[in-house]
């Protein structure tokens, strides 16, 4: 097959987080890297879990070393560190590269199996490649197939269903009690990473009223400014943690994720709040902190659903296991699409072979006609010209169709090879 498609990948499979962080690319860096290989069609994908460079060319095979060195240069990796870092990289060629890209976009290669964010990230990578004029016909066609694969996996499997992280499981658990967050008052205690993720998930689920309670009001404010980018319509308030008992009676859902060593809320505080509550609707309390923020006996109060990180872990484990069971289905879709994509590429290659075959036949026909031109009158010559042209067309019709028809890539390539050899089409 003409053309070469390779990939250089560093991901969670081999590299620890500090290595991945060191090589993660910003959008600006991605653009700069794309601009470095005008001779290739290039795609650069960089997320917190992976940094990958894909390169395609119809000419000479791209040099993996060249790609790697460019990445190191861009990230200012010291010479003495480079040798060590090389061990974390995987290199892929042709069919493996295509299969890998499809596995990445569907989320089966993600750290959280079935992660849906990766689809948008790969889409963005293709968009950047296009914007930087690093894409060509091959990558455009590949992107169409890759997006189709991802969509098929979403609709034909349950790979993306169910929460697979603790913060998402917390939100999904709350949805089992209140499925519409628009009318609910949500209280997040803490302003760390888990609290921020939970807030983002609530905003994604159209929560409109969220209060952030934290010891440091400044940190809470910073967190709000980060999550606000997602949704500016929501009402996000800050509450000093000492004032928690005041708002508790109006809260429907509470998520606590602080690093406090003592209980942030005790049973008596919650009991008091429940007495002041204006309705008998349930109160959902989710404690994702370690050590726990909420006194466990709160869970025995009527109309209170209290879950801690272990409870949520069992939901996550269950979902992760179920997602893993879906991997073979996703792989079958990947295999089917990969095979069709390669067959389509091979069919494109049939064109030049058929043309060469026709040219060869035409040359022979013309040569024979010329040799006999003097022996025939004008009318007979024209008749013979027409007759041999029709004969040639009829004889070549079936081989031309057969060369394109097979859906198997290997079959098409074998036939092309045979025809080229039999008729001496290669120079």
């Amino acid at each position: 097959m003409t053309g070469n498609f390779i990939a250089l990948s560093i991901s969670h499979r081999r590299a620890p987080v500090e290595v991945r962080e060191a090589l993660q690319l910003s959008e600006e860096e991605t653009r700069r890297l794309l601009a470095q290989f005008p001779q290739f069609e290039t795609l650069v994908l960089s997320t917190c879990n992976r940094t990958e460079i894909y390169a395609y060319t119809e000419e000479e095979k791209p040099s993996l070393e060249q790609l790697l060195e460019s990445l190191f240069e861009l990230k200012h990796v010291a010479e003495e560190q480079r040798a060590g870092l090389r061990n974390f990289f995987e290199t892929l060629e042709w069919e493996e590269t295509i299969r890998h890209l499809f596995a990445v976009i569907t989320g089966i290669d993600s750290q959280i199996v079935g992660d849906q964010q990766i689809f948008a990230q790969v889409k963005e990578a293709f968009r950047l490649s296009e914007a930087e004029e690093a894409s060509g016909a091959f990558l455009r066609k590949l992107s169409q197939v890759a997006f189709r694969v991802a969509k098929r996996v979403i609709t034909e499997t349950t790979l993306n269903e169910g929460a697979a992280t603790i913060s998402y499981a917390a939100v999904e658990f709350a949805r089992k009690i209140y499925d519409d967050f628009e009318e609910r008052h949500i209280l997040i205690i803490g302003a760390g990473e888990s609290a921020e993720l939970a807030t983002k998930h609530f905003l994604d689920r159209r929560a409109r009223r969220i209060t952030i309670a934290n010891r440091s009001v400044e940190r809470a404010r910073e967190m709000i400014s980060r999550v606000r980018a997602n949704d500016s319509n929501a009402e996000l308030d800050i509450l000093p943690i000492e004032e928690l008992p005041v708002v508790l009676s109006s809260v429907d859902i509470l998520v606590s994720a602080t690093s406090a060593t003592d209980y942030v809320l005790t049973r008596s505080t919650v009991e008091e709040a429940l007495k002041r509550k204006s309705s008998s609707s349930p109160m959902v309390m989710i404690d994702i902190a370690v050590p726990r923020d909420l006194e466990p006996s709160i869970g025995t109060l009527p109309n209170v659903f209290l879950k801690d990180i272990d409870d949520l872990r069992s939901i996550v484990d269950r979902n992760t296991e179920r997602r893993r069971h879906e991997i073979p289905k996703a792989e079958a879709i990947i295999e089917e699409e990969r095979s069709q994509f390669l067959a389509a590429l091979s069919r494109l290659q049939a064109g030049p072979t058929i043309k060469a075959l026709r040219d060869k036949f035409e040359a022979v026909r013309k040569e024979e006609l010329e040799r006999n031109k003097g022996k025939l009158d004008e009318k007979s010559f024209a008749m013979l010209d027409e007759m041999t042209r029709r004969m040639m067309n009829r004889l070549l019709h079936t081989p031309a169709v057969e060369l394109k028809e097979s859906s198997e890539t290997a079959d098409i390539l074998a036939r092309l090879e045979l025809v080229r050899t039999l008729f001496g089409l290669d120079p």
Partner: protein
Amino acid sequence: MFRKRALFGASMDVLVAVLRIILPLAYGGLAFYFARTFFRTLDQAHRLRHALSGAYFVLALHTVYIGAYTAHYRHELVATVFELSSLIAFTLLAVYVFAELRTSRETSGTGFFVTAIAFLLQLLSSIANETPPETKAILHDPIFNLHVTTSVFGYAALMLAAIYGGLYLLLFRSIRRNEFGAIFEHIPSLDRLERYGLRASAFGFVFLTLSIVLGAMLYSRIPLNVTAVAFLFDPKVVMTVLVWIVFGATLLVRRAMRMEGRRLVLFWMSGFALTVISMTVINWIGTSFHSFF
């Protein structure tokens, strides 16, 4: 004229006989579809659209059956237990479509339970295949037919409210016990179950109100051999009024006392339990529907 009438009678007879076979199959098919959505073997995007179309189709089929049956036998499906069970299947599905399916964003686990019950009721009615009895004159009275139909709708709505209530309590218990299995996954949220249950209760309340009003109208229309007091203290009248009060109170208590969640569900479930217990007792003691018939 006579030949035309005979031909009409024969064609209605055939239509009723055919639909009697088709209806349980249609309900069974719908229940199977909902079972597949319940166990998530279908693509989510197509579930609701197909479920709603399927439910409308079965309702249309059943409407034709009721029409043909009424035209042929000159009374609605109200004369016997088996006729009533077919009408309840129809009303149960109709109320479900209007209470939940039409406004829902996705098919929920409740559809499976509702259609399974409707299927069993229709199957029972079709298998019994009884010859309609010699009907009393009152069965031809339109007000009487409306009275029975509205009360069947009312009780079907209350049955649906009970299904929602039962599922609410099941899910509540699962969450409390950290049982995150099929119940947790496939049944809609507590909030939604409560909302649908209230909607079904409101449906039931409206239909029972109509039924009670129509019953009172009947008393003044039909010469019954009972006093007004005996009429009012007929066990079924008393029970219907009681159930009506319980469900009316559910709706009222929710607004006035801001009762929500499990307490509200327990309140309406006790109303349904009262209905079932008193129905059973009254039917066990009595020989006809009302004491005065």
